[in-house]
């Protein structure tokens, strides 16, 4: 009893390069590119909140990019992915649609939700990202139902539910695990355990700092992984997703990670405890992007120059997307009443 994470929760550990053996280099480079897109898009958003250009609440996943890219790399378009409040990374990892994300956080009609959702309600239905909403725990049963639909469809599609360690305190989480397990639903539960829910460390909210114990209790296969290690995540997820498709049983992945910014907005939230101030410095050394880059470089698969080009290209894309979003129109007033009912 009282199992704990051990080294995975110790930010001074796992700072070195990754073990990328057995993985496709091209896929890893693809993931590196996506992580950079996510990182830089969110940094842009952070800057624009500080500027006052963005008003809606934004929960940034800077530092947590690896989970989203590793998950997305195992999926197909007919799978059904649901996010939560901190889902820019989940959204961008699916189809890198920076344009419609930026337009959305500005409340523009060009946004993925036509400006009706802002950062907390994003969607990319045609690519399988079926929505994210900010009520903690709400999309867990919804994704479970998407799994039920996939099961009835009998095409081997799966549902994915992203949530945080805090969401594991909601009843909806436990009810969903039981339902998915008892009814054999093809659902991938992905917990991004960043050790915090808002200002509170997990040790102040739960009797243990790992949540995979709930998968265990519900008889769901599970794995706990370094969430800042694309290679480890990819290996675990490839196996897991294959298993789900084949058996129509759920799987639970707990990815240990850390957010570099505050709970909401661009600041670092170092006011929520001395420990965070210290830990953040260390966690930044467990950077999923830097670690993957160095591993690829060590394997002679990606050079410093390649990395510079990637970053520059991304900056340009982001700049263009932002300018386009700024010029876009707001939804018309009538739209407010047009989309209430069919």
């Amino acid at each position: 009893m009282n199992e704990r994470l051990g080294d995975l929760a110790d930010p001074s550990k796992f700072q070195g390069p990754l073990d990328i053996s057995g993985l496709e280099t091209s896929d890893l480079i693809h993931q590196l590119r996506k992580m950079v897109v996510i990182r830089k898009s969110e940094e842009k958003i952070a800057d624009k909140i500080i500027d006052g250009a963005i008003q809606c609440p934004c929960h940034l996943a800077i530092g947590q990019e690896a989970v989203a890219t590793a998950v997305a790399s195992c999926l197909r378009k007919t799978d059904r992915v649901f996010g939560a409040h901190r889902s820019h990374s989940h959204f961008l990892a699916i189809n890198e649609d920076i344009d419609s994300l930026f337009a959305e956080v500005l409340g523009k009609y060009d946004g993925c939700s036509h400006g009706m959702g802002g950062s907390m309600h994003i969607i990319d239905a045609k690519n399988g990202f079926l929505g994210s909403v900010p009520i903690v725990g709400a999309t867990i049963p919804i994704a479970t139902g998407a799994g039920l639909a996939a099961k009835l469809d009998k095409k081997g599609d799966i549902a994915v539910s992203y949530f945080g360690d805090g969401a594991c305190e909601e009843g909806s989480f436990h009810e969903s695990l039981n339902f998915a397990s008892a009814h054999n639903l093809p659902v991938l539960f992905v917990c991004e355990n960043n050790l915090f829910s808002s200002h509170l460390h997990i040790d102040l909210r739960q009797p243990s700092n790992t949540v995979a114990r709930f998968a265990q209790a519900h008889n769901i296969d599970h794995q706990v992984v370094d969430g800042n290690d694309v290679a480890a995540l990819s290996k675990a997820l490839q196996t897991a997703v294959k298993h789900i498709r084949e058996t129509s049983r759920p799987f639970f992945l707990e990815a240990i990670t850390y957010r570099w910014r505050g709970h909401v907005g661009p600041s670092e939230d170092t006011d929520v405890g001395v420990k965070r101030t210290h830990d953040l410095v260390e966690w930044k050394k467990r950077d999923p992007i830097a670690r993957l880059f160095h591993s690829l470089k060590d394997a002679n698969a990606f050079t410093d120059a390649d990395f510079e080009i990637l970053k520059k290209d991304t900056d340009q894309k982001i700049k263009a997307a932002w300018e386009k979003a700024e010029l876009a129109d707001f939804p018309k007033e009538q739209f407010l009443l047009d989309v209430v009912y069919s």
Partner: protein
Amino acid sequence: MEKKTTYAQGILEAFEYLLGNHPEFFVIGQGLWSPWYVGSTMKDLDIKFGKERVIDCPISELATTGATVGAAICGYKPMIVHPRVDFMLLAVDQIVTQAAKWRHMFGGNAQAPATFRAIINRGGEQGAQHSQSLHSWFAHIPGLRVVMPYTAKDARDLMISSVLCNDPVMFMDDRWLYEKEEILGDIELIDLRTVKPQRIHEGSDVTIVGASYASMLCEQASDELREKQGITADFFDLRVLNPLNLDEIIESVTKTGRLVVADGDWSTCGIAGEVIAAVAEKMSFSQWKSNPVRITLPDAPAPTSKNLEAAYYLKKEQIISAVINSVK
């Protein structure tokens, strides 16, 4: 003579129609594999159509409701059955904050056409926690259609309409109506968006409005008033509580100048008050011939004792005397 069908059988027929004709329909809920749980309204459906599409489930109202919403988002037209409204309250987040807003908050790029079937199951000394209806709560929520059939025909046809509608729908049937019998014609496929309150009696002295079981009392009261007092009523059954279309009722009160509304729930912020307020707002104030009246539950939770239950629930006599007072 054509054979009569009960309200409960009407619901069962709707299920058979939907399961037989709509592969995108399935139904989930507590008790669906039970010989007695939801009365006769779902008898043997699991045997006839398979346990894959007629799904019994754990006691997890929130997750099973959310799962229904999730399947709806993925292209199904599913229904969750809550054997009592009281249990469904655990799932209010999924109904009100998720499903009802899903289309809107994604700018029309998605929809969640789930049907929430909630059974009003009260009386029989069950007491405060097994008696709530709360339809007025749901009528308060934009994005959520609320259907409360009174006739057996509506129980059947509007259940089909609710399921096939592209919006989330709260469909509430009342066990006290299960034995109500009518001669039903063939199933009529109706677009829920076109359904309005229905004038069941035509008259000129007073306008009477009800919904669900209260409509039964209204109909009986209206019959008795006509027969015994010579008072004729325009009697409307609301059918769809949200979005609420009161045009014909307002027209009627403009004609009669009198309005009595009966509702089997609490008064404050309830649908009876809503009808009165909407008429008062929109009908020229000079048309009133007497004060509008509402007949609702007393401001108390449901009791258990049979004598208190008798005092608590609506009776047709209350409607009759309200009308007589209003006309005199």
